[in-house]
């Protein structure tokens, strides 16, 4: 039994746990003795933090470096409107301590990287991956395997979510499932693709549930299974995951025995040259402003979705990226074309596609309309 005691106040607080044989006094003490590290205090980290604090996990560490933005409030329920502009860690700590003063909240304001990950992970029993990018996901996975800590995984995109538990003693890790990340630009981020605000709530609570089960040692963990959730259909599916004997980090013949450069690993993949950046195919918002002020004859192509165009636009010609292949004949190869989207990812794909289709005078607006709103036109709504 965990070597901690519950006060009278704690016993009252956790009564609904204590009367269930699956948790009971033993389980609640295990929760109090346990420590969890949340990587990310955003969409997934919000429900995770709230429920794990309420459940009485003794020590919760949170890694983040961001400040609360208005556009976070649609789904990041840890933070309130009054918190906009504050560091996420500050509002998270205040909120979680308000829910349960018996829980110790430790904040780590840092970019998780190959230098600091192993030392930080060593201080916690369980690591929960609530990040938003491939380099950090591979870093979290590898650091979990190397430190022997379970990795409670969740990921979301638009209306789809995934969850699993990786890197348990005999279970598969994230690299067993995906040995390599997709090239940058191929999979849109949530900032570009959007996400239903409730979806991280559903996936994050599934992760919290898995973490609690791991601590109390009851039930069947999601290890070896990938849970898929479709919020539009309200359908759960489950796929079998196997430990890959050839996995570079947890297999029999390991090639990764220490943390690597994850930005490089996720940035440049051998054999994938389609998305390389070339300066003659790029234009900055400042350059665009100058050219427009000079009344240069530029054709602005907007490859976002119609609902985004309604929010704000540069008076561009709208062809959503997915329609570009069948509507490319609407464009004139002789004209100088500036392509933009929200932050520059989709327009980069559009420029690549147009280059292959024979367009030479085509440029990607770096940073997209969001950069334009930030640098050139502060009256433009941002989303």
């Amino acid at each position, binding site marked *: 039994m965990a070597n901690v005691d519950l006060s009278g106040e704690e016993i009252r607080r956790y009564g609904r746990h204590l009367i269930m044989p699956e948790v009971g006094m033993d389980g609640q003490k295990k929760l109090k003795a346990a420590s969890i590290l949340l990587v990310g205090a955003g*969409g997934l980290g919000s429900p995770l933090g709230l429920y794990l604090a309420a459940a009485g996990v003794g020590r919760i560490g949170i890694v983040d470096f961001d400040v609360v933005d208005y556009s976070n409030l649609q789904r990041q329920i840890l933070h309130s409107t009054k918190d906009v502009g504050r560091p996420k860690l500050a509002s998270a700590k205040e909120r979680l301590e308000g829910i349960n003063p018996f829980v110790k909240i430790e904040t780590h304001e840092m970019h998780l990287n190959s230098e600091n990950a192993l030392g930080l992970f060593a201080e916690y029993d369980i690591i929960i991956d609530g990040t938003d990018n491939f380099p950090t996901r591979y870093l979290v996975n590898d650091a979990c395997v190397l430190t022997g800590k379970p990795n409670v995984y969740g990921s979301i995109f638009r209306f789809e979510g995934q969850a699993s538990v990786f890197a348990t003693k005999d279970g598969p890790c994230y690299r067993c499932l995906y040995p390599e990340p997709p090239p940058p630009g191929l999979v849109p981020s949530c900032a570009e693709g959007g996400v239903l605000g409730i979806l*991280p709530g559903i996936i994050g609570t599934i992760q919290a549930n898995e973490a609690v089960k791991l601590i109390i040692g009851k039930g069947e963990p999601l290890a070896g299974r990938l849970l898929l959730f479709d919020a539009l259909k309200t359908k759960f599916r489950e796929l079998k995951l196997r430990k890959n004997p050839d996995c570079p980090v947890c297999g029999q013949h390991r090639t990764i025995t220490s943390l690597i450069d994850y930005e490089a690993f996720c940035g440049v993949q051998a054999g994938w040259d389609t998305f390389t950046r070339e300066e003659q195919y790029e234009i900055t918002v400042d350059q665009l402003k100058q050219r427009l002020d000079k009344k240069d004859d530029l054709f602005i192509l907007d490859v976002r979705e119609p609902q985004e165009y309604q929010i704000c636009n540069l008076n561009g010609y709208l062809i959503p990226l997915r329609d570009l292949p069948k509507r490319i004949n609407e464009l004139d190869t002789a004209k100088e074309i500036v392509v933009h989207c929200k932050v520059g990812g989709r327009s980069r794909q559009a420029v690549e596609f147009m280059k292959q289709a024979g367009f030479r005078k085509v440029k990607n607006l770096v940073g997209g309309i969001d950069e334009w709103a930030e640098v050139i036109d502060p009256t433009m709504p941002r989303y």
Partner: protein
Amino acid sequence: MMSFQILIPTPLRQFTNNQESVTVEGKSVGEGLKNLCTRHSALQKHLYSDDGRLRNFVNIYVNDEDIRYLQKEATQVAEKDVVSIIPSIAGGRE
């Protein structure tokens, strides 16, 4: 001709006219995927590398089983089987 269903994940639906699933012809996973790419040519480079191999970040399942642990692209598929493309997604913190 045998046909079966391939489920298209959200990030790739932009290449299938937003269809969630496509019924393809073929007896094996590989034949079905080739058929899928013939119909929706923009998918080709997202699923296959230039030398014609399935990309490492694309996982294909027949029902709930990963084809890497079956007969890979030669895995035989029956009418009632559902083939899924499971891409990696990364969102969560932002």
